[in-house]
């Protein structure tokens, strides 16, 4: 068994060993070993040239990653958390996303950007955001959200290999989880959703940290006689419409779980996809379980109340099957 953190580190090591164009930079990724201890030992193995501690200038080190990608390198940029990535949004939206199109296909930006996301650690309103949907909104970039140890490894490899800018969101509560890691298997396409648990009565559609809550909810539901399927979106842009619609076409009910605020969320997007393309498959209104529309509070009981929890998922699923 391997931790999620070690799986990311293994992928980083593989990439740095195998491709001289790859380098890794971000705040505290070198000497400190990474804020989540993901990159421990990489500076010692690969040296200052390829593992770079940056100043605290998110916009400029993300922009420098874009420039280095334009210049033929394969940069992996760690932005400590999504919260700080807001300072780099100009570079993401106005440069990384548009460069290929705006230059008529002459230039490409093969950059991979990793960042931690989500709440759950009582670090309050400025350190607990889930803003994956801001990124997934933008054409020209791709967005991945690995929920499993295997995906944490495979998706980073895929992100670096991809010729387009790829943003990888790692939920901060997942770094310590354990799971199997097979580094020799051929990974499934990172752009496809996965069915993590088969079920017949309702589809629980989630990504990142919420996938685990959905799986726990499915176990609870089973005890009450409700068979829940769990869909792990994996890729947030592009969204795998076929797998989403396929699952709902079997279960005819959907609960979308998203740690973002409900308004304008990916949960809203998925609900709209179901309304557009699976309307006649639905036997009940789509339900969304999202973060309450408040800044994430510090106090434990308040944070828990704000963020989607297993009981809210169970409750929503039971409502859709007419048992709530």
């Amino acid at each position: 068994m391997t931790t999620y953190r070690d799986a990311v580190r293994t992928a980083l090591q593989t990439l740095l060993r195998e491709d001289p164009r790859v380098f890794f930079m971000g705040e505290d990724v070198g000497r400190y070993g990474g804020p989540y201890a993901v990159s421990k030992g990489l500076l010692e193995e690969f040296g200052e040239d390829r593992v770079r501690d940056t100043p605290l200038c998110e916009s400029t080190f993300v922009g420098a990653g874009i420039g280095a990608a334009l210049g033929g390198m394969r940069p992996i940029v760690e932005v400590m958390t999504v919260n700080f990535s807001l300072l780099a949004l100009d570079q993401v939206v106005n440069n990384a996303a548009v460069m290929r199109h705006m230059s008529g296909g002459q230039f490409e930006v093969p950059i991979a950007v990793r960042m931690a996301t989500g709440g759950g650690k009582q670090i309050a309103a400025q350190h607990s955001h889930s803003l994956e949907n801001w990124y997934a909104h933008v054409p020209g970039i791709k967005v991945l959200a690995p929920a499993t140890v295997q995906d944490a490894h495979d998706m980073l490899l895929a992100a670096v290999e991809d010729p387009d800018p790829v943003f990888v969101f790692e939920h901060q509560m997942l770094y310590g989880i354990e799971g199997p890691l097979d580094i020799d298997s051929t990974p499934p396409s990172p752009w496809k959703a996965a069915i993590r648990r088969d079920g017949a009565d309702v589809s629980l559609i989630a990504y990142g940290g919420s996938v685990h809550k959905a799986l726990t909810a499915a176990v609870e539901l089973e005890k009450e006689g409700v068979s829940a399927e769990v869909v792990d979106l994996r890729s947030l842009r592009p969204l795998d419409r076929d797998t989403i619609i396929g699952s709902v076409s079997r279960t005819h009910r959907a609960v979308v779980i998203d740690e973002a605020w409900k308004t304008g969320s990916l949960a809203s997007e998925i609900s709209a996809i179901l309304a557009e393309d699976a309307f006649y498959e639905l036997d009940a209104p789509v339900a969304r379980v999202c973060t309450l529309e408040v800044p994430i509070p510090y106090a434990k009981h308040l944070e828990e109340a704000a963020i989607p929890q297993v009981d809210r998922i169970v409750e929503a699923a039971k409502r859709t099957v007419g048992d709530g």
Partner: protein
Amino acid sequence: MTLDISRDHALELLRDMIRIRRLEEKSAELYAKQKIRGFLHLYIGEEAVGVGAMHALREDDNIVATYREHGHALVRGIPAGEIMAEMYGKANGCSGGRGGSMHLFSADRRFYGGHAIVGGGMPIAVGLALADKMKAEPRVTACFFGDGATDEGEFHESLNLAALWKLPVLFLCENNEYAMGTALYRHVSDRNIANNPPAYGVPADSVNGMDVVAVERAVHNESELVRETSQPRFLELKTYRFRAHSMYDAELYRSKEEVEEHKKQDPIDSFQERAMSDELITQTDIDAIEADAAEEIAAAVEFAEQGEWEPAEDITRHTYARDLS
């Protein structure tokens, strides 16, 4: 003071300044005829900066420019026809009609764009220089930006990062005294912009940006120092924009007298006068250059007129390497 350059070189410099001036005048005319739409930022008055700098840089160097970049692109070697076609929005434009006036690109010419978010091109220049440094390429990345960009956080961050990592970037500040319509004294606390970079360990100098020979010499010296030392340097080019910020600008923030005063320093007129008094060139040379430029621009307009519109069905092309659908 004599110019101390050859006749051939004097002719080259003059030719390129006149090419830019005539391209820009034609662009303004075509904007009025609605052939060119969107934003159009003219370089008239600032030609000595682009021409001097491009003549000083090497073919293999990288260029990152701003949204006022027609002149840079032209002298860098992007054909006038492809620039004009881009402004028309035609498929034979240098960015396939997707960029327009503010986003001219050329992979062949290592021209990494017209960037239209003020300061946004600076981190990209830092990254290009980082790539070159890691690959041990003896290349300089020349990063153009205006005085307005020095207000932005990315200016300060980029100077710091380039100095910290010893990256071969030449920061070229085209100080035309206005951040759009806000005068220098109203947008910076220290009007001597070259005072800033040394705080980050970046050597800085200023040069008269209306003097093409002075610009060329300064950019040559600075770029070769950047190349030799693999460390960033900063050069302020003091210039002035004779036309409005863009075609939407009513120029209510400055007086006609101020503009007229600066026009006395017109980079083309003043260079012609000096080159003639040095007996490097004659009126016949100037007439020949004007005739060639007129012909080049007319051909460029024809190229743009004849260009095809890209089919709307192809709109998603180049959003990703491969279509996602």
